[in-house]
């Protein structure tokens, strides 16, 4: 690998945000014809480093060399013109514009005829592009907000590829994609590599990183720890060690088997049906149980989570909180009867980003904090502080905006908010999505503590290993149907579960 040409080199790059040193003296060589992974915990500086390469942020000091010539991207367009394109973590398509308009955003000039945009030609060009990537079923004239999250992400990928980049930055895009989308992205990445281009690949999925990459650079606290060639037969554990800087001392998944779950039923789900999404779903949740729900993204399990919380209505069937004999009909009623729900879309549905940690944690528990009288900021802060301590949230102070926290700490705030509300049942939809190993371990041990104190947990997840490792019982969904119900078992393997998914 070392004999390949260095296409882009960053040298002693530094970037500070307000008071945090996000990237410190980073020097990395990216070569042509390689998939170069960038890994590290949340907040280790991966995204900041790549954001400087593609012109979103400017470095405070240091230089970059593009084909051995000094180069600093002034903005994203400048970077694009120099062959650098990026797929970012956030949704980057524009609602209420058509698919074609989104694909050619910023390149409208190519379609101008007599001072006006030739929409027909643009839409034809978009069709051709879509067809090239095997996406004939997408109509280029549809409003992009009508497409699924995944399809929009795929449009973003196509849009980036359409500028024919020499360097493509893929920032945690795979977490948003199902297997189909991932396969498309992988084939695009491989194709680029074949043609001697470079992919900078950020992912939390270490298995994926090892499988797909030629080189892996590990970052920690803004610094480059090491760059390793994958042919050296790296293992996941070695990478984890490099990321954290020490061996994982905490246990990761649960290690106990054969724990007795109480016979008490706390939640009964009966014949829940939602046309085209959920098909006659019936199951029971026991007291102090971790019940896993697994499947593909589109299998209906995320929608089921919302139904349990009253955030989405089922056409048929009921969800009943057993000991209160209460049928869940809306969110306030679900909360009143002890149900809590942590959404999969953290930044959109779980957190108020431009509000303090305290405000976020207190929001569902205002009744408890105020009693009958007025709310006192002091009481709110004491309440929030206790929650923050329970989950060990890394913060400046309790009044700090959630916006400034790293992904893992944001998720801890979302958890703290509901744990402090002291629910009996907590529904977690992908609680560890896009989160580093350390915070994952903290969340797992928190779940352990919760079930010990008698709380029942429903964990919805796309990661089968996590479900197998954590749950007392695992339900598998396929196309809206409950297809398997498996008790916790040492012998249960990922392969067995995956058979039911497909």
């Amino acid at each position, binding site marked *: 690998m070392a004999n390949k040409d260095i296409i882009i080199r960053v040298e002693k790059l530094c970037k500070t945000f307000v008071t*945090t040193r996000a990237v410190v003296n980073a020097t990395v060589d990216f070569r042509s014809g390689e998939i170069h992974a960038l890994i590290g915990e949340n907040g280790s500086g991966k995204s900041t480093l790549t954001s400087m390469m593609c012109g979103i942020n400017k470095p405070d000091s240091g230089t970059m060399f593009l084909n051995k010539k000094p180069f600093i991207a002034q903005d994203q367009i400048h970077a694009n013109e120099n062959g650098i394109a990026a797929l970012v973590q956030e949704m980057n398509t524009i609602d209420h514009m058509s698919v074609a308009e989104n694909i050619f955003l910023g390149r409208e000039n190519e379609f101008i005829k007599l001072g006006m945009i030739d929409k027909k030609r643009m839409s034809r060009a978009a069709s051709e592009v879509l067809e090239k990537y095997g996406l004939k079923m997408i109509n280029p004239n549809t409003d992009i907000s009508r497409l699924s999250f995944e399809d929009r992400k795929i449009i973003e990928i196509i849009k980036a590829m359409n500028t024919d980049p020499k360097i493509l930055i893929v920032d945690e895009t795979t977490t948003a994609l199902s297997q189909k989308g991932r396969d498309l992205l992988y084939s695009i990445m491989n194709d680029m590599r074949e043609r001697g281009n470079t992919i900078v690949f950020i992912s939390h999925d270490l298995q994926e990183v090892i499988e797909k990459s030629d080189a892996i650079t590990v970052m920690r606290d803004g610094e480059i720890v090491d760059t390793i060639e994958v042919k050296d037969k790296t293992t996941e554990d070695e990478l984890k060690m490099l990321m954290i800087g020490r061996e994982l001392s905490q246990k990761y998944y649960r290690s106990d088997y054969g724990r007795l779950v109480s016979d008490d039923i706390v939640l009964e789900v009966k014949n829940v049906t939602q046309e085209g999404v959920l098909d006659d779903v019936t199951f029971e949740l026991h007291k102090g149980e971790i019940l896993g729900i697994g499947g593909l993204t589109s299998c209906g399990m995320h929608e089921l989570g919302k139904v349990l919380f009253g*955030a989405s209505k089922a056409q048929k069937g009921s969800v009943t909180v057993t000991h209160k004999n209460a049928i869940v009909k809306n969110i306030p009623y679900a909360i009143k009867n002890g149900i809590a729900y942590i959404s999969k879309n953290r930044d959109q549905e779980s957190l108020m980003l431009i509000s303090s940690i305290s*405000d976020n944690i207190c929001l569902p528990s*205002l*009744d408890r904090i105020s009693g009958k009288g*007025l709310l006192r900021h002091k009481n709110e802060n004491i309440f929030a502080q206790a929650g923050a301590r329970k989950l060990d949230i890394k913060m*400046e102070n309790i009044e700090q905006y959630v916006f400034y926290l790293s992904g893992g700490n944001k998720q801890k705030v979302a958890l703290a*908010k509901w744990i402090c509300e002291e629910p009996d049942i907590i529904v977690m939809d992908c609680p560890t999505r896009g989160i580093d190993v350390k915070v994952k371990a903290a969340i797992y041990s928190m779940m352990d503590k919760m079930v010990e104190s008698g709380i029942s947990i429903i964990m919805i997840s796309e990661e089968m290993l996590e479900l197998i490792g954590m749950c007392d019982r695992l339900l598998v969904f396929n196309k809206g149907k409950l297809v398997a119900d498996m008790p916790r078992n040492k012998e249960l393997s990922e392969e067995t579960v995956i058979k039911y998914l497909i």
Partner: protein
Amino acid sequence: MKIKRDNSNLKSRLLLVGVMVVVYVTFATLSPERFANANTLYIIFQQAFMSSVIAAGLYFIIIMGLFDFAIGSILVFSGILGGLAAQHTGYAGFIIVTIVVAIALEIVNGLLYMILKVPSMITSVGLLMILESIATFFNDGCGVALEYEMRLFGRAPYNIIIGTVGLIIASILFGYTKKGIQIRAIGSNELVARSAGIRVNQAKLWGYIFCGLLVGIGSIMNISYGGKLQPALNLSSIDRNYAPLLGCFFGLAFKDQINPMVGILIGGFIIKLLTTGLMTLGVDATIQSVLTGFVLLLVVALTMRNSRDMHVIVK
């Protein structure tokens, strides 16, 4: 990422007070005889209270991400009805009718927006046009005049007392009640508020009720101060929105550093200083608006640094 907030708190406060002092000193030097006397300052102080109470009401709507163009017309409408009631029932009827009518109209305003599912900006303009016209049906369209002895709340110190009480009520409703926090949560992220079990429409309606309460108090101060109130037509009641709206922006701009009601009051004071100052200098009304607008932009730009660091999209 981390941020130091303590330091910026003090800076923002100093900035706000600093602007106030600079504006005052400037006009006092330029117009020492007409402007720089205790009497003028006292009058400005009283006037600032009136628009600030209305601004405090509007603040509840704006913080939710909604907008209310109708406050001016509600002010006039409730004032006329309250004034008419005052002629028969004295202070009790005056206060109760004005406030109840203002609250009722704000409830209608909120319901219109929620039922029609149309942007609040549009429904409130519709309501404004309806209210302006209906107001002419009372007392043959002559509006209403209050006797001197009924105008207690237009005089010092009573206007300052009722204004302060209004601002304190707003401050408590906003910062220390569950509904206040729910209203803030809706403004911050409606989806999150919903999933935290907040009944969003109910909380929004409470925002409108709080707004109505304060507009009602403002209306009492307004008619007591002026003595007469006539129906406004052809959208002219929008004119009454400007001063409260500007005050509201001050409150918003400093909301993380200063109790927004205090921010609104100081903002209202600065605006009144400016307009009165320019008036005593004999500056043309058009130029007055231009300068007032510039000061607002300047102050807001200087204080919104935080959100710019965060790449927040301002709409």
